[in-house]
């Protein structure tokens, strides 16, 4: 592909993201005209109701952007590492693992701070990802989509009964947890953003640094090691990066599924499979998708809102179904 076309696509997607940012600032229970929104931001005044609302929406928008980036990139990364088109935190049960860890934290270690949430979520996500991948890749053929998906679904069913076992006798945990169980970016605060940001920056940095090596890995295990790539080291580092991204996002937003599944697929249709191109575009695409889903949820659910995680599941599950329908029987 010519790099001019790639630049064009990047440009278009940045414009799309910009549009979603503006929509996210203007739309909601209260619609604020575009010119007022822009004026409010540039004048930095918080006197009228509209201006206050605009400033209320800024952290949510920023968080949606970085969370979407993280999810999009971690999806692309996981799919590259597992060489599996359906690798996504929600399908692999990683979200449930993070949930279980957080519930354990709330119930037994009475954690309440964001930082503790993040560490528990990352720990849970990491352990689950490792377990599911190990189970799914035992046997001939390695980690095929169907084996991984079943391992993920089964593990997640098992973990959710543990979640119930811990939660049912404790009403207060149940109330805290149900707000966290549906993925949403509405609870974003500046504090939350600044807490996850370091994790996300490290995760994104690792992913982009690994892109060239992963591209070589895509040529095949033997060829890659022949070319001097330490395949296992690359996999482990890459998976750590992916888990950091997912875990940190999940800790604040709850489980948001399918962003990591859809975005890389669409991106690959546009620019091919080189990770050097897929990763940056997945970042922009993920941000656009999550913000878009959030805006749609706010518009559809007025005067309240539909959580972004529900919207992404409704857009994403059909795409998973499409992939499954298109795939050859052998591939499954």
């Amino acid at each position, binding site marked *: 592909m010519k790099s001019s076309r790639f630049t064009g696509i990047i440009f278009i997607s940045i414009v799309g993201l910009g549009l979603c940012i503006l929509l996210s600032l203007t739309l909601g229970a209260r619609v604020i005209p575009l010119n007022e929104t822009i004026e409010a931001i540039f004048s930095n005044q918080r006197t009228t109701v509209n201006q206050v609302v605009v400033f209320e929406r800024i952290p949510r928008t920023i968080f949606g952007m970085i969370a979407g980036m993280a999810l999009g990139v971690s999806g692309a990364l996981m799919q590259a590492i597992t060489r599996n088109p359906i690798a996504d935190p929600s399908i692999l049960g990683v979200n449930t693992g993070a949930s279980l860890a957080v519930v354990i934290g709330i119930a037994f270690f009475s954690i309440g701070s964001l930082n503790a949430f993040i560490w528990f979520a990352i720990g849970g996500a990491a352990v689950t990802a490792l377990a599911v991948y190990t*189970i799914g890749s035992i*046997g001939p053929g390695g980690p095929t989509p169907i084996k991984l998906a079943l*391992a993920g679904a089964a593990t997640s069913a098992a973990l959710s*009964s543990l979640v*119930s076992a811990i939660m049912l006798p404790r009403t207060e945990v149940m109330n805290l947890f149900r707000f966290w169980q549906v993925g949403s970016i509405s609870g974003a605060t500046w504090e939350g953003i600044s807490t996850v940001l370091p994790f996300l920056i490290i995760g994104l940095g690792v992913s982009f640094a690994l892109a060239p090596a992963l591209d070589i890995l895509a040529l095949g295990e033997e060829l890659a090691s022949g070319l001097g790539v330490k395949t296992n080291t690359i996999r482990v580092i890459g998976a750590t990066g992916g888990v950091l991204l997912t875990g940190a996002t999940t800790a604040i937003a709850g489980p948001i599924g399918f962003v990591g599944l859809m975005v890389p697929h669409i991106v690959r249709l546009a620019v091919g499979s080189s990770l050097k191109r897929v990763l940056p575009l997945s970042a922009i695409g993920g941000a656009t998708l999550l913000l878009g889903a959030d805006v749609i949820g706010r518009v559809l659910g007025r005067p309240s809102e539909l959580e972004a995680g529900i919207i992404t599941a409704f857009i*994403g599950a059909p795409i*998973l179904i499409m992939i*499954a329908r298109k795939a050859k029987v052998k591939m499954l």
Partner: protein
Amino acid sequence: MSISARIDIRKGISGRKRRWITATLILTLLISILSIVILMVGNTIYPIKTVVAVLSGETVKGATFAIGTLRLPRLLSGLMVGMAFGFAGSTFQTILRNPLASPDIIGVSAGSSVAAIFCILVLNLSGLVVSFVSVIFGLLVSATIYRLSQGGQFSGGRLILIGIGVQAMLNSVISYMLLKANQYDVPGAMRWLSGSLNTMSMNDIPRLATVVVVFGSITILLGKLLQMLELGEQSAISLGVRTDLTRILLIGSAVVLTAFATAVSGPIAFVAFLSGPIAKRIVGSGKSHALPSALVGALLVLVADFIGQFALGIKLPVGVITGILGAPYLILLLIRMNRTGGAA
């Protein structure tokens, strides 16, 4: 074929039959013993004599209420629900040729759960209407999954993957309803969602029993056909079995069983999934394991409910216990299956 070889084959067949009968009898015996224990044990322990007296219609002070109103409905519904899940699970697993393809993993239970939760939380309905709506919705969801997985050659793998996708959507709807529900309704809904026999009354029993008997018999009667299906698509066609029709009938009754049981008790985790493989283990291959699976299902539910009520300091719903008991077995099965390449 020589005569001695023929005798050997016949011996093999009758041996398998004997094993099947023995296994079924032992399972029935275990269930009966457990049932009596369940009726005897509770906050107050009654002797067998009192249990028999209450069951034969005599009024015994205290015991009539404890046994007749509390323990008996719980026991019977646990029995029925377990059998329903067992039947349904073994059907799905046999047809999709994958032990992991049970209704609770590929989205059928989630379909019924959505409908039931909607009825309970939003419409404040209960009883027969809930069952009816969740059966319809369960059928709809399964039909959708089945339709979507067609096109080209039928592939169990594709169906499972699509089922998982559909389930993800349905689960997000469930979480949403829980989120928007009144705070006081949430514990009840959560308890139902994890599968519980707490709210059973004698009124639920007759229709549950009817469904289990009718659709259970359909499942058993088609068991022979099912066995031929197990030989594989191509050979079944040449044996003269109409594969598509059989498949649809069997899946249909499995869905009705799942949906009905789910509407009554909530989705009790892993019972559908565990019963088939355990029954197959006990009975051995070669014979239909629909009935043994149903018995294993009933046994699982009763044991788990007993543990959940009395063995731990706190009372936990039966689904939580089956979930915790089932998880290690599930992981083991996954590993074993993957090692032999069964899932791919």
